[in-house]
């Protein structure tokens, strides 16, 4: 083989290798990143309520909050609470008010469920997040005549986080939105329930 042919072959294999490296790195970033929302939210695992990570900024002094999110809607207050389904299903309860509020569930693969306050029953949004196995167990344990009114959501993975967004449509609603975003309860569902 001529020297130029060898060089061409080396360049070609280098390019193929570059493609492989590129794909591997892109696929690996969500698992290796220390700045992603899943890793950052993990500090809220021990909390029973959501933690405000982005305060609404529509008027008046801005409330202090952990600010690791990139620029968000200034009118939205965002709270986060992480869950780990190893300890049992997680019950998420939000008391909705007059403001637009939405709950979304995120796993490693992205958002998998979302619901807004329009689905609230008597001012309360309640979800139970469980793994497929916990869901099957709950079905098997339930009696014939028992009727369960929980909204059960099967999570794609063990770990994830709940995001609550509350919209402060007017400057006067800022404090209320911040409070609502930080008051969603995420507790481990007891086995007796």
């Amino acid at each position, binding site marked *: 083989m001529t*020297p130029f042919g*060898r*060089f061409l*072959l*080396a*360049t070609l*294999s*280098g*390019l193929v*290798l*570059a*493609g*492989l*490296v*590129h794909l*591997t*790195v*892109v*696929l690996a*970033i*969500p698992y290796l*990143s220390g*700045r*992603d*929302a899943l890793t*950052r939210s993990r500090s809220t695992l021990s909390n029973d309520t959501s933690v405000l990570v982005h305060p609404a*900024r529509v*008027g*008046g002094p*801005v409330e202090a909050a952990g600010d*690791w*999110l*990139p*620029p968000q*809607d*200034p*009118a*939205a207050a*965002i709270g*986060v609470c992480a869950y780990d389904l190893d300890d049992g299903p997680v019950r998420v309860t939000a008391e909705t008010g007059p403001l*637009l509020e*939405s709950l*979304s*569930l*995120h796993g490693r*693969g*992205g*958002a998998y*469920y*979302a*619901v*807004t306050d*329009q689905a609230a029953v008597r001012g309360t949004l309640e979800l139970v997040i469980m793994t497929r196995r916990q869901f099957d167990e709950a079905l098997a344990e339930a009696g014939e005549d028992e009727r369960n009114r929980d909204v059960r959501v099967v999570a*794609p993975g063990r770990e994830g986080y709940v*995001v609550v*967004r509350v*919209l*402060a*449509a*007017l400057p006067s609603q800022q404090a209320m939105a911040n409070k609502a975003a930080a008051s969603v309860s995420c507790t481990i569902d007891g086995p007796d329930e």
Partner: protein
Amino acid sequence: MNTTAKTSRMTGMIRGMPSPAAMRRPRVRSRPSGRTTTVALVLYALLLGAGLGLASANWATRGRYPFGGVALGAWTAWPRIGSRDADPYARAIDARTGEVPLALGEGLVLTATQDEAGQRLDPGCRYTISGTTPPARAWTLTAERRHPAPVAADAAPVPRTGFTSTEILRDRNGGFAIALGPTVEPGNWLPVPSGEGALRLVLRLYDTPVAASTGVLEREGVPAITRLGCTP
């Protein structure tokens, strides 16, 4: 580029030196350069692969989402990033920034970096944003800079960065017109935010039925961004 230069320098070095293997075994000495160039070429291929692969992965996962954008006038929406169908690039970008995308059931984000005529939004120009928005329970329209200026903690009053659908002033028919510009204007004046870099408009639709399918999005109107003039 850098890698190639480094490799060629290395090749020269290796070629100049008598390789220890060649000295020990005189039989191979007849073609000493064949073996060293092979080593150099393999090294070159490895470095090229690693360098190009890492650099391109870094480039592709910073900034905007590369795939899945739906263009509507001057606006672009990425309906799939808020679902489990998000492509790996969008996931990697979110993982690097810590972004929590708006889930499909929550709403939809539309961004614009250009005006209706296709020109980039210029922080020194005046624009009007008017028309209708797709059906949504609430929406907010904000202006952002790529590198926002740091906000002083005691800055009062906080400069307006956006409008919500509740607070905006409307005309008799329910329409609205937002005046975006660096100087004070009557009506719904949205000041150009201070900072460096490109200007971007973000329209967030909350609790909207259009998120479910982009076909609906195309039928519904989006606000038009028209350039009025620029201050020299």
